[in-house]
């Protein structure tokens, strides 16, 4: 197990370098970070040249990247457009998005798995068909459409919730945005658990469990669920990173000042340190989430553990 963890950690390194370099390349090589500093004004050539030198922008790209990463690992993420250090923005934004993601994952697990298990066990019945049609619809309607619709209905028309979230973003205000963020993934979790349950129901070991005279409840919870949920757990784990990245749309709709909001601002204002800094952290979150999923997988499935 220990060796497995180390091997996975080592595999993460090239992926981390590759992903961050790719983003770095897009921002620094395709955009013009210096011009962005001056906004609409034309930069004074001498000043621009000095800034380039200070930021290592006159060096080859790989040197710039190394310089940037070196600074990041010393805790220096650079300065945002409003003069604040990027780390300060992160300190305020990440907890908000983390709360939003927690709410979303919660709904994914509770509603998604429940619906999936129920419809998987009643495959072909009306409950199953209804759930299938619903998930199809949910997957088809893009998040930004459902977001505005639900905001309009619950926030404006019926006034059940605040249409926008206050800056400190407490959990109770994040319920609706959390559901909106979770919705598409929730539908996938439902379908995945349904398929998995429906396949495993026919498995020989389930037949054995029935032949042992176990009560149906025990057959389902102890034998069927544990095996069926392995792929679902994997999906939810990899989804954590995707949710944090995908929160941009939701945060924009509900005016939540989280990671997506800051990133969006950073991109609009062409502020490279903000963009690359946030993306780097997101990539790390994504990789760590994937690692945890792999480890969890090994815990859930002994065949992997001893392989």
């Amino acid at each position, binding site marked *: 197990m220990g060796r497995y963890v180390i091997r996975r950690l080592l595999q993460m390194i090239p992926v981390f370098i590759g992903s961050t370099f*790719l*983003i770095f390349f897009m921002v620094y090589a395709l955009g013009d970070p210096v011009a962005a500093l001056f906004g609409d004004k034309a930069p004074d050539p001498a000043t621009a040249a000095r800034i380039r030198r200070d930021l290592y922008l006159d060096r080859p790209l790989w040197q710039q990247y190394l310089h940037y990463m070196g600074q990041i690992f010393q805790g220096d993420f650079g300065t945002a457009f409003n003069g604040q250090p990027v780390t300060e923005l992160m300190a305020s934004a990440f907890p908000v998005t983390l709360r939003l993601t927690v709410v979303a994952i919660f709904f994914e697990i509770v509603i998604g798995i429940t619906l999936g298990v129920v419809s998987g066990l009643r495959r072909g019945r009306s409950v199953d068909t209804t759930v*299938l049609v619903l998930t199809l619809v949910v997957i088809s309607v893009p998040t930004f459409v459902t977001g505005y619709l639900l905001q309009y209905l619950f926030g404006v028309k019926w006034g059940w919730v605040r249409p926008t979230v206050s800056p400190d973003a407490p959990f109770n205000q994040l319920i609706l945005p959390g559901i909106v963020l979770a919705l598409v993934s929730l539908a996938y979790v439902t379908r995945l658990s349904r398929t998995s349950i429906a396949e495993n129901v026919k498995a020989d070991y389930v037949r054995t469990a029935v032949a042992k005279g176990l009560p149906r409840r025990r057959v389902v919870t102890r034998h069927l669920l544990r095996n069926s949920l392995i792929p679902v757990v994997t999906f939810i784990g990899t989804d954590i990173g995707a949710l944090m*990245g995908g929160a941009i749309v939701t945060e924009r*709709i509900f005016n939540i000042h989280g990671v997506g909001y800051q990133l969006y601002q950073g991109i609009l204002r062409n502020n490279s340190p903000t963009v690359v800094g946030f993306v780097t952290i997101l990539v790390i979150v994504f990789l760590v989430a994937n690692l945890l999923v792999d480890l969890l997988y090994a815990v859930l499935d002994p065949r992997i553990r001893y392989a």
Partner: protein
Amino acid sequence: MPEPEHPAYDPLQPGQGEAIAPTGQGGPMDLALDEAESLEKTLGDQPSGPREKARSLWSDAWRQLRRNPVFIISSLMILFLVVIAIWPQLIASGDPLQCDLSKSQQGSAPGHPFGYDTQGCDVYTRTVYGARASITVGVCATLGAALLGSVLGGLAGFFGGWGDALLSRVADIFFGIPVVLGGLVFLSVVTSTTVWPVVGFIVLLGWPQIARIGRGSVITAKQNDYVQAARALGAGNGRMLLRHVAPNAVAPVIVVATIALGTYIALEATLSFLGVGLRPPTVSWGIDISNAASQIRNAPHMLLWPAGALSLTVLAFIMLGDAVRDALDPKLR
């Protein structure tokens, strides 16, 4: 979507109750059968072997598709969308860019059933014309990603070795970048108003998924006995890959690509909504929804029509993908 009735028992499907399967396996009594089967496998090096297998998979799938209402409905919807995307004039006589500010946000009027948007443009005409951008992006991005992904994934799976390892790591790198985020970063530096940067970006982030599927199915197909037999009989790599492996590995790629088409259309709309996808004067549902969103309290019709059209389009492709998957993947029947 599988048929809503009870899953019918399929006597050819193993695992559901081998006892009544009409063809047996193992045991001295099934000697004749075993022999016939192994004969078929050893004959696999002849092109008729795997090709026939592939052909029967396709004709089986086609027979099942034709009876599936989900497939019929979704393909009619898609046919309609494609026709509209090519000839929007067929059902919309107006010009989507000809707007009258005095009619800003007005409701439906004779000849203008969906009303007007903030600029005073006819929402119906714009909704009809919006199909073109979505369909173009969806189809082109899917073709690109599927081609790139299946070629790279297929080669990596077939030859293995360091190329395979490299491809897997490169795919991991692309998986490490959240899609919407990557789109924001990448497309915000592009200034073109055509659909091609969006298509290019989707291909760039979409191919690893297809490569992964293609690689997996090539590895599975490669392990089939008749492929091994063909190798043993000295078939060359190119012939093996094209004649024996590819026809049997292509089904999962088609399934994933069809479903991806729907999600790519949704992705294009999301990027356009965020202001980095398509740009005016291209008529796009994403842009229209974005513009309408801030006015949802005053004029919800501006949001509902393009949003409905977008959702139905995505739905049609996802339904098609579902139907194709059910037909091509006997395991899921």
